[in-house]
């Protein structure tokens, strides 16, 4: 059964009703007061830092400073070869992938909404918090030159600020190094392990960053 009801109201009453509705509706700012906007200002670059961390003394002994320079350049090439070799097995080498997912999940658990913006800091439309993230690098780096062990890592800088308070936030460093430390050769025969560790370290970085937002005073 359908009912068609037509109410006839005078213009002044309609105006008052309109005003009441407008006042009771949440404002744009209030609607975003549980939203966090993440500006990824620099997505970072995948890098392997292994051979470069080794001594260049052989080149130096044989050919002095120029020899050391040549040896260092040679080691950089070796690291680039290692990057290419492992990147074939890493389906998603972007530094921000998994980091952004973990960041979003952690904040959503606490009732926040998350907007990701791949740009320099811009308008925030009344968001509760804004995060400016610059990822320096991610990948695998040497963590113990004595045992020649490498681990997955991500290094970033960030600022957390409250747009409505017009603060710029303190510049902070975020370094996350994987728990699994192994010789490079071990990761080369266990690509699944390398991929999992790389994802895990990025996820931990995202969760850490989210917690920093949640507990920002």
């Amino acid at each position: 059964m359908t009912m068609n009801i037509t109410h006839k109201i005078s213009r002044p009453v309609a105006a008052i009703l309109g005003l009441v509705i407008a006042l009771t509706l949440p404002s744009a700012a209030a609607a975003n007061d549980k939203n966090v906007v993440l500006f990824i200002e620099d997505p970072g670059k995948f890098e392997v830092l292994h051979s470069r961390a080794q001594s260049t003394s052989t080149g130096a002994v044989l050919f002095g400073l120029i020899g050391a320079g040549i040896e260092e350049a040679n080691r950089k090439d070796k690291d680039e070869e290692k990057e290419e070799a492992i990147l074939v097995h890493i389906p998603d080498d972007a530094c921000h992938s998994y980091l952004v997912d973990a960041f979003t999940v952690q904040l959503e658990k606490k009732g926040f909404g998350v907007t990701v913006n791949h740009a320099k800091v811009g308008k925030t439309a009344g968001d509760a918090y804004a995060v400016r993230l610059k990822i320096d690098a991610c990948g695998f780096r040497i963590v113990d030159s004595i045992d020649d062990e490498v681990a997955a890592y991500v290094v970033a800088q960030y600022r957390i600020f409250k747009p409505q308070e017009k603060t710029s936030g303190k510049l902070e460093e975020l370094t996350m190094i994987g728990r699994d430390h192994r010789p490079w050769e071990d990761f080369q025969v266990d690509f699944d392990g390398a991929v999992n560790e790389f994802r895990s370290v990025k996820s931990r970085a995202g969760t850490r960053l989210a917690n920093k937002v949640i507990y920002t005073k």
Partner: protein
Amino acid sequence: MQTSFKRILTLSIVGLALHGCALTDASLEVGNDMTVVNEGPLSEPESLVFRVNEFEDAREDTVRVGYKKNGFGQNMGDIATARPVTEVISDAITAAAIANGHTIGESGIVIDGVVNRFWIETDINFTNIEMACNIEAEVFFSHPQSNDVFYSATYNGSFSDKKQMGTEGNFTEIIDGALQALIDEIVFDEALAESLTAL
């Protein structure tokens, strides 16, 4: 001209002596700047009392926490902490508990732990020195009466930065950053907070 050269040389030698050159061992006062400790889920359980015992040192190399390196990346002087790393970590956890509204006392929840890793790695580049420190500890929380472990976790803190010089101040800053990150892991551990709330 010769006098200026002598002055520069003398200043360089004095500078190296003050900052500690790569040949000399360094004994660093780390963990003294733990006043900036974050609040996190650890602050959610009502005020608790903790007893933080000194941790066990399970590192392979218990003498040093890293090596200074020369310009060619060769290991030179030892980097060590002035206080045992076990004490440094126990003190950092104490600071974190206090900053999150808890107190320290003899009859409290017992915190024990094992330090598995405490290492600073330096990479000498052409224009800078990249330092990275990684600290890992297993931490056990036990009932004060029964001594039964009701929660345990492995926490890992890292920090890295690029510096122009391998000074003791820079090494200290990097290690303190890793200690702070280790504490963040404990302070932000939601499962730990839930275990403590359930007591």
